[in-house]
């Protein structure tokens, strides 16, 4: 503790120290301006004490000396910063307000299964999309009714020398503090899904489902896309038989491979929340990946 600050309450002392630190870096910064009547004298006393403590010459204005004084002020400021940094970040993460490269990632085995032998490449793209997205969208815990909660979506465009093969990777998952569990990862190609670039990422997923989704029934509703569902029981998804027409034009059941994907999170209240529920026609999706040269 700097003795020049000993007579001040911690809040005033922290302010004095912070403004002194800013003045050392840039005395033109408006936030460095003195607030108390005798603040310039106090600031001088703080700096004199630090110069003495560091065994520096107060007349030396070289950048190396300024740096050492600035470091010392920064270290002194630390004693006024309360709270556990990690805990603060966890709380911010609940709101989706932390930088995405701080998330601890897990990726659902279903996602890995989807990309099979290209998984080693796909995994890198997922990490790149989360850590350095073109666009990201986060939903906190207390959003409006009907909005997803604790869900994050990311999108990144991956250009190819062959424009036909360029795609946007759409990644989505559920959060618990700084943990992010990725359960969805889709390649969105321009010739499959019409996008203007102005859609939010929920709308991108919805449009993806328009093309690759199958209708399903969940808790009495029939849809291709269920935005969110708060339920004490887990969401039950039932996919009705897919029908088509045979060579004679008769309606027949078709065998279709599909995957049902839901982002499941638990709210602070303990309530289970299911979001972004979709059922993707894997035959159609894999055909698109093959057509665009991804699975080759």
């Amino acid at each position: 503790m700097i003795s020049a600050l000993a007579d001040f309450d911690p809040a005033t002392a922290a302010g004095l120290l912070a403004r002194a630190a800013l003045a050392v870096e840039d005395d033109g910064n408006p936030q460095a301006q003195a607030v108390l009547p005798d603040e310039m004298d106090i600031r001088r006393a703080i700096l004199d004490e630090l110069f003495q403590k560091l065994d520096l010459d107060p007349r030396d204005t070289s950048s190396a000396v300024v740096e050492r004084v600035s470091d010392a002020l920064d270290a002194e400021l630390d004693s006024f910063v309360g709270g556990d940094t990690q805990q603060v970040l966890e709380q911010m993460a609940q709101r989706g307000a932390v930088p995405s490269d701080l998330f601890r990632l897990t990726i659902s085995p279903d996602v890995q299964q989807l990309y099979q032998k290209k998984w080693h490449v796909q995994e890198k793209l997922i990490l790149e999309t989360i850590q350095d997205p073109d666009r990201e969208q986060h939903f906190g815990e207390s959003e409006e009714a009907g909005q997803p909660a604790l869900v994050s979506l990311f999108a990144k465009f991956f250009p190819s020398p062959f424009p036909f093969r360029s795609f946007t990777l759409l990644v989505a998952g559920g959060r618990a503090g700084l943990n992010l569990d990725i359960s969805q990862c889709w390649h969105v190609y321009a010739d499959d899904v019409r996008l203007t670039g102005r859609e939010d990422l929920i709308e991108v997923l919805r449009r993806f489902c328009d093309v690759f989704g199958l209708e399903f029934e969940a808790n009495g509703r029939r849809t291709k896309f269920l935005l969110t569902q708060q339920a004490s029981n887990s969401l039950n998804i039932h996919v009705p038989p897919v029908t088509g027409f045979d060579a004679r034009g008769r309606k027949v059941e078709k065998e279709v491979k599909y995957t049902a994907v839901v982002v499941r999170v638990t709210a602070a209240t303990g309530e289970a929340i299911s979001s972004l529920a979709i059922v993707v026609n894997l035959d159609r999706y894999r055909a698109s990946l093959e057509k665009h040269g991804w699975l080759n």
Partner: protein
Amino acid sequence: MAGPVLYSANPWIAHDITMRYRDGVHFAWVCEYFDAGTAPAGSAAAAIAPSSNPKHIYETLWSDVDKEDAHSALIKGYRKTFKALAMAWKAAGSITDDQAKEIIATVKSNSWKIWRPVLYVIPKSGIVPATRIHSVAHGARAAYGPELQIQDLVPAEFDVIEFRK
């Protein structure tokens, strides 16, 4: 020759903190030249220090983030500045204790992406009155060349762009 546009290179987190906690009112060091380093010898721009040259700041930040340079002097300096700013704003009562803790936790975190550079592109004609653009006194400049500040820049007055090298 100085053009109709001002430039300011900053880490992305500077813009984010200002938008989240300062009602979008930016304090920005600005420059009439994007790249003072290519100015003709003898011109005012040629006398601007590299540490005040938007292109140099942008490239240095980009490189430090790209290489995840844990000893980056620029990032270390920004960390100290934002911590001090958070404490000063809290002392002034313009942010809450929780908000100050959030700013400090973010800048002390291991995130690299928060330090990626962004460029503010500011049409001079939009800064009304023009006296809002302050010329920095010689003693406070990094070198002899002109350096400018705007203390109350609002989002409607500039564009924020990111470009990859």
